[in-house]
């Protein structure tokens, strides 16, 4: 960070609001989508609501007040309740296999955006998004989710991770006291748009009939793609 602290107010440098909300919503949405009809949706909704309450308790209006602590406490109870509901739910094993990583992932993402510690924010955001992505992959492997849900779920996970990282860095650079709405909306919308474009491409590739090809051919194709990506990063 090369910015000098030119203003000496105790500025609020926590993650900005809109991108944080978008991140949690996208992660929860991805988790619910890939859960499909097998995994219970109520635990995810409870976790999302609990995170919203905890975040509300941390905003400037309620920070360090009794109402703020009450909100945080109630939110934490909701999150706990979500885990208990997941344990008690009468879903079959496949549903639980998809549900648990998603639940933990969304919780970790919420913690990353609270945030508990500034230097953990990036690591926690990546871990949270990674866990939700693990849930997406598991849903794909166990054939719980259909093709479109998987694609949308991947877009949701990547967009949630990007929005969380964006909220953190924007908060550090500009802070919450300043007006940042438009920039956040533009960034999150752009990420979602890119995702939509590539989902459309993938659907087109599927419609063309790629699975007719032998596995070796697909392997070569993927190897070429990976090599291309490595060259890009070099």
């Amino acid at each position, binding site marked *: 960070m090369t910015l000098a602290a030119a203003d000496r107010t105790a500025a609020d440098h926590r993650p900005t609001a809109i991108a944080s909300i978008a991140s949690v919503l996208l992660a929860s949405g991805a988790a619910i989508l890939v859960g499909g009809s097998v995994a219970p949706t109520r635990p995810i909704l409870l976790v999302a609501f609990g995170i919203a309450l905890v975040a509300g308790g941390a905003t400037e209006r309620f920070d360090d007040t009794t109402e703020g602590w009450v909100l945080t406490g109630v939110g934490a109870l909701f999150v706990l309740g979500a885990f208990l509901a997941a344990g008690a739910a009468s879903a079959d094993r496949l549903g639980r296999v998809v549900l648990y990583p998603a639940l933990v992932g969304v919780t970790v993402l919420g913690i990353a955006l609270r945030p508990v510690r500034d230097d953990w924010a990036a690591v926690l955001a990546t871990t949270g998004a990674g866990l939700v992505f693990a849930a997406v992959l598991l849903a794909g492997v166990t054939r719980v989710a259909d093709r479109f849900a998987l694609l949308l779920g991947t877009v949701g996970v990547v967009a949630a991770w990007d929005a969380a990282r964006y909220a953190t860095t924007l908060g550090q*650079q500009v802070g919450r006291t300043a007006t940042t709405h438009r920039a956040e909306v533009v960034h999150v919308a752009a990420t979602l748009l890119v995702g939509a474009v590539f989902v459309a491409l993938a659907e087109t*590739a599927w419609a063309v009939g790629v699975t007719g090809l032998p*596995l070796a051919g697909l392997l070569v194709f993927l190897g070429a793609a990976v090599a291309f990506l490595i060259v890009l990063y070099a």
Partner: protein
Amino acid sequence: MTTVRRTNHWRGVVAVALLAGATGLLFKRPFVLLTACVGAGYAIYPHVRPEPPVDVGVDRRLSETDPSPGDEVTVEVTVENESDRPLPDLRLVDGVPPMLTVADGSARHAAALRAGESTTFSYTLTAAHGTHQFRPTTVIARDVSGATEVETAVEPSTDELRALTALPDAPIEQDSSPFPGNVLTDESGEGVEFSRVREYRRGDDRSRIDWNRFARTGDLSTVEFRREQSVTVVACVDARAPAYCGAESGPHAVSHGVAAAQELLEAVWDRNEKAGLAALGRELCWLAPGQGTDHEERVRHRLLSHPTLSPRPPSDAESDSVHEAQLRELRTRLGPATQLLLITPLPDGFIVDAALELAADGRELTVVSPDVTAPETPGERLAAVERRNRIHRLRRGGIRVVDWDTEATLAEALIRARTRWSQ
């Protein structure tokens, strides 16, 4: 100066494509392989958009430029995207003067601007005593994916903010060069203000004989007046790396020092004497003493723009030998009759030795030391004690020290010091 940086915002997204591809191949799930396409798409996304164009115009307006200390001043900043491409992610940090605090609102802003569009934000400052100048606005633009960042500084033209209360006389000594000037000395000789009466000596000017006394007592005596002499003053600011110390919540000692130098030099110029500027730090800053509006403007500009006096601390500390070379150069440039005001927080022994050396040349030296210690932790209490020891060492060496508690104004500290010196 424009810097282009790659943020690591999208680092790691390749893992999505690799994991999905590996899982899909391992478990033979073609749908999972399709999600690898989405991952690959996101891996390409940061590389697609070029660097954003940073061609912005910044306009800053103050609600008033001449407030009283303690008044609130509203600053309104308008930023316009002057290029013909949109700026999807623009962050601004306005250059608030280092000694002022933001009372309301934020001096930072983020916006997304189409070509030709502009955005406005405002914040309120509490005016503090002194002359303050705004620093350039930092502008950071990112492309829409957030992968590349361009940082630049834009300098809008603004008036400076002056919130002043008068400073009493600068702590300059009463005897210096033999040229007549406006400073009343304690030496007796020719002048206007009465000093004393002494016995008549052959050769005394007849116009200075006290004839009234001769008429009364019959003794011849000569009246002496206070000699008026001119004075040359240099204010030297200690801006080495150790001097950038201070409490977390307030400005550091170098900012206090620059503000103090400004005030002291203004006080010397008010008395129509010559004053100049020097600073030890990254490089030796030197402006020979002088008078007049041109010279005053040059000094003010130097105080605000010279890299040695920058509010940002140096990224790596220079060695003592560099400062010793600067000190030697300073001693050659300072005449033996120039009075020196050394403004330093006394962070280490080097500056104490330097002060003693400079005083040993025979010139008048006064040390003005802002106290930026806030003894809360044991380490800070130790620093405060060490600073007091350095002050005692200087006073034992015959150097006058103004111990300035930065909670009070410099004027009050000078009045207190003067009371102590006259005792």
